[in-house]
Every structure is written in structure tokens, then in C-alpha cells.
């Protein structure tokens, strides 16, 4: 995708500003040059934050769990974060979206702390900032490099995105990835970025529910699907599509084998599409090892997340997870064999 050449506000396009900067009227020229400079500064800030996420981290007062929830009152994302409506330790809100964002962020924080000894997204107690009621009928949730943002859905295809712990865990894990391997968000590295977000979003849910791999649903987004779609979830770690020939959503595009890998340009090179391949491999590992997935498969994958770098690809993921299984649980053990077999089963 080409770089956005407009600032966040996107009022006057650059070619207009360029012409105004050559105006014979001094005031017009000065204001245009100022706008161009602001735009360049904003672009530089966004690029810098993309490369150095630590700069965007809001430190919590005492480097422990700290949550802030804001209400956007259906305004667009240019107005993030919105109005502060709940802070850490504050009373519950009458607004279920606020409480869901708060509670699920808390569960995800606790999951990373207790299972991986990780103190928030940056491992330094970074404040978890969430904004709810973003936009009107907004069918999406995202991580903007600094915070989470959740739409309410249109009530047709999706309902509010804060309902799903795996969605909240997914978005927060993008923050974890940003503060660790910082995988480039395109092609295979981007698919790994999405994969880790799905894995740890799912594990947070399974951990909260105290589920074994066998009892877990291995679905992404089952709680946000709207009444007019027949799809039960957006994605599944299991073989086969999450939905097929749905009149609204179509068919789940995720491949579960390397031979079906998407090589086009949509979705930044298929980051949400090709994540299906490592997702299925993780499910196979977890199923083979039995018990709860955060006990063995989780640490293998977490250690790998920390070891990869911005340009890591699927081949490096395969190698690193296999190596880490041996490192953590012994060379030649059932863990290493399960990881190797899972990758083989999905085509590596």
C-alpha cells in the first residue's frame, strides 16, 4: 500500500497546499507552508512511532496494571482517545462497552503477567488505553500504535467489538508485538503479526475460562457476530473455513496449508488471510500436546515472538518454534516432535 500523503485530518490534499505555497499573497503562502510542515511532522511522527513503539508508550504511574477507558461518543477516529470515563480502580460504568473494554484488558494484562511474567504490552507497565463507541455503525476494532479502538458494529453483521475477550486480547497483542519483534505489517511477517495476535488473544480467553485445548472453541470473534450473518465466528484455528457462502461475508478466505497461500496485494499482502496457516499449525501443536495450550504451546510461541525480528518470515517461524520447543522442553521430546509434525502437516 502506498504511503498516506495526508495528515490525519486530511482536509486539504497536498497538491492544493503545494499550489497555495506558491501564491502571490504572502498570508496564503505562509499558511500553506505551515500546513505542509505540520503534515510532514505528523507523517514523521507516525513513521517514527511505527519504527519505535516505545516512544508511544504511556507509562503507568507505578509500573503495574493501569487501564484507562475513553468514550468516543460515535465520533470518528481522528478524535481519539475521546472522553475519559473509567480509570484503573474506578467504579463500574452503566455502559457495558466501557466495562468490557476495562475487564478484558485486565484479563489480558493478568494473562501476560501470570503466564509469561510480562508487565503489560511493553513489559514496563505501559498504561492500557481503550476507546469505545468509535464511529457510527463501525464494524471494526484496531490498534493505532498507541491504544485500542472499538466500534459498536452496525447491529446487522457485527455487534460491539468489546464483547469478545479474544478480540480485545488480539488488539492488545498487537501492542505486545510492537514492543518485541515488531513484525512488519505486510506479507509473511505481517501474517505472523496477525497470527500472534490471534494466538495470544485466544490463549487469554482459554486461560480465563480454564479450558483445555480439547474444550476450547478455537474461534476468533464468536461474540461479535451479528444477527443477520450465519457465520459463527470470523476465523477458526481448526481445519476448514469459519464460514462458507454467507450472503453477507462470503467465504472465509483463510488457507490452512502452505500450498493455498495467498500471494496477492489485498490486505497488505494477506496479513489476515495467510495467518490461517500458522494458526492451524498452532492448533495442531496444542491438540497434540494436550492439556491447556498456555502451558506448553504458549511458552514456545511466546519465546519465539521475542526472538523474531521485523522481517521474519514463515520459514524462520518454523525454525524458531522447533528450536524453542527443544530448548524449553528438551531436544527430541514430544514437544519438539509435535511442533515439527504440525508444520509438516501445514506444508512446511
Amino acid at each position, binding site marked *: *500500500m502506498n504511503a*498516506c500523503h495526508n495528515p490525519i485530518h486530511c482536509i486539504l490534499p497536498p497538491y492544493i497546499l503545494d499550489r497555495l505555497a506558491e501564491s502571490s499573497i504572502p498570508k496564503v503562502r505562509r499558511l500553506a507552508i505551515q500546513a505542509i510542515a505540520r503534515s510532514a511532522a505528523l507523517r514523521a511522527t507516525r513513521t517514527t512511532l*511505527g519504527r519505535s513503539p516505545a516512544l508511544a508508550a504511556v507509562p503507568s504511574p507505578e509500573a503495574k496494571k493501569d487501564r484507562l477507558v475513553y468514550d468516543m461518543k460515535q465520533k470518528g477516529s481522528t478524535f481519539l482517545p475521546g472522553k475519559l470515563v473509567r480509570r484503573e480502580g474506578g467504579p463500574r460504568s452503566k455502559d457495558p462497552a466501557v466495562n468490557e473494554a476495562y475487564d478484558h484488558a485486565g484479563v489480558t494484562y493478568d494473562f501476560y503477567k501470570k503466564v509469561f511474567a510480562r508487565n503489560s504490552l511493553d513489559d514496563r507497565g505501559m498504561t492500557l488505553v481503550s476507546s469505545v463507541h468509535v464511529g457510527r455503525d463501525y464494524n471494526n476494532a484496531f490498534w493505532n500504535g498507541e491504544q485500542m479502538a472499538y466500534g459498536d458494529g452496525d447491529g446487522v453483521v457485527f455487534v460491539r467489538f468489546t464483547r469478545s475477550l479474544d478480540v480485545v486480547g488480539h488488539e492488545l497483542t498487537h501492542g505486545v508485538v510492537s514492543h518485541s519483534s515488531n513484525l512488519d505489517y505486510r506479507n509473511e511477517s505481517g501474517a505472523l*503479526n496477525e497470527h500472534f495476535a490471534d494466538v495470544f488473544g485466544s490463549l487469554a480467553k482459554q486461560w480465563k475460562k480454564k479450558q483445555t485445548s480439547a474444550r476450547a472453541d478455537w474461534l476468533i470473534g464468536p461474540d461479535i457476530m451479528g444477527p443477520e450473518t450465519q457465520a459463527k465466528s470470523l476465523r477458526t484455528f481448526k481445519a476448514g473455513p469459519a464460514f462458507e457462502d454467507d450472503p453477507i461475508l462470503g467465504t472465509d478466505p483463510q488457507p490452512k496449508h502452505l500450498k493455498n497461500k495467498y500471494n496477492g496485494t489485498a*490486505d497488505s499482502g494477506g496479513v489476515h488471510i495467510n495467518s490461517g496457516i500458522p494458526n492451524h499449525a498452532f492448533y495442531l501443536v496444542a491438540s497434540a500436546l494436550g492439556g491447556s495450550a498456555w502451558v506448553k504451546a504458549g511458552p514456545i510461541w511466546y519465546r519465539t515472538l521475542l526472538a523474531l525480528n521485523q522481517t521474519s518470515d514463515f520459514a524462520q517461524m518454523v525454525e524458531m518454534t522447533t528450536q524453542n520447543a527443544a530448548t524449553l522442553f528438551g531436544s527430541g521430546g514430544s514437544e519438539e516432535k509435535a511442533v515439527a509434525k504440525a508444520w509438516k502437516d501445514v506444508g512446511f
Partner: protein
Amino acid sequence: MGIRGIRFRQSGGFGGLVRCCEAAPEDLGDAERCALERHAQAERARAATAADSGARDLLVYEIEIETDSGATRLAFDETCVPEDLAALIARLQQRARPVPP
């Protein structure tokens, strides 16, 4: 530059779903046509660079503009939609249908 048609593609977002539609020149208002031509001209004059903002799961909108002299592709994430294309993109979003990627 005469616009012969446009192809719209929405992808990305949390769901990663791909939706597309096409529009004929007569589907565009005069202001929209002018805006597309201006953005296409600016796009051709600019070297393509991929700046990572650090944002994840944003919706991505692509408009491929077909003209007599070839095709030009515009791409924006949902936080970067130019004001003069916002209404057109909203309309194309409504019209777009799910397609295999």
C-alpha cells in the same frame, strides 16, 4: 484525463475481509471525478513509499482508476481518507460485496 471506470477494493480491518465493486463514470459526481483525477495525477508524480504508522487492523481502501492512458491506483487506510473522496468511498463501501481475495 477521461475516466473510463473505477474499481474499488476494501480489505484489512480486524476481519481481513475483501469486498469489491466497480463504478462507471456516470456513477460519479463532477466533483468526485475531478477529485479522482487530481489524486491520480498526484499519485503518478509521487514515488511510492510504504510508511508503517504502527497501526494494525485498519480498513484499507483502494481505488483503481481506469483511463485511456492506463490505470492508476490510489490507496488509503481509514484514518487517511481525503475529505474530497470521503463521500465516494462511503458510497462504494455500501455497494461493495465480498469476493475471494
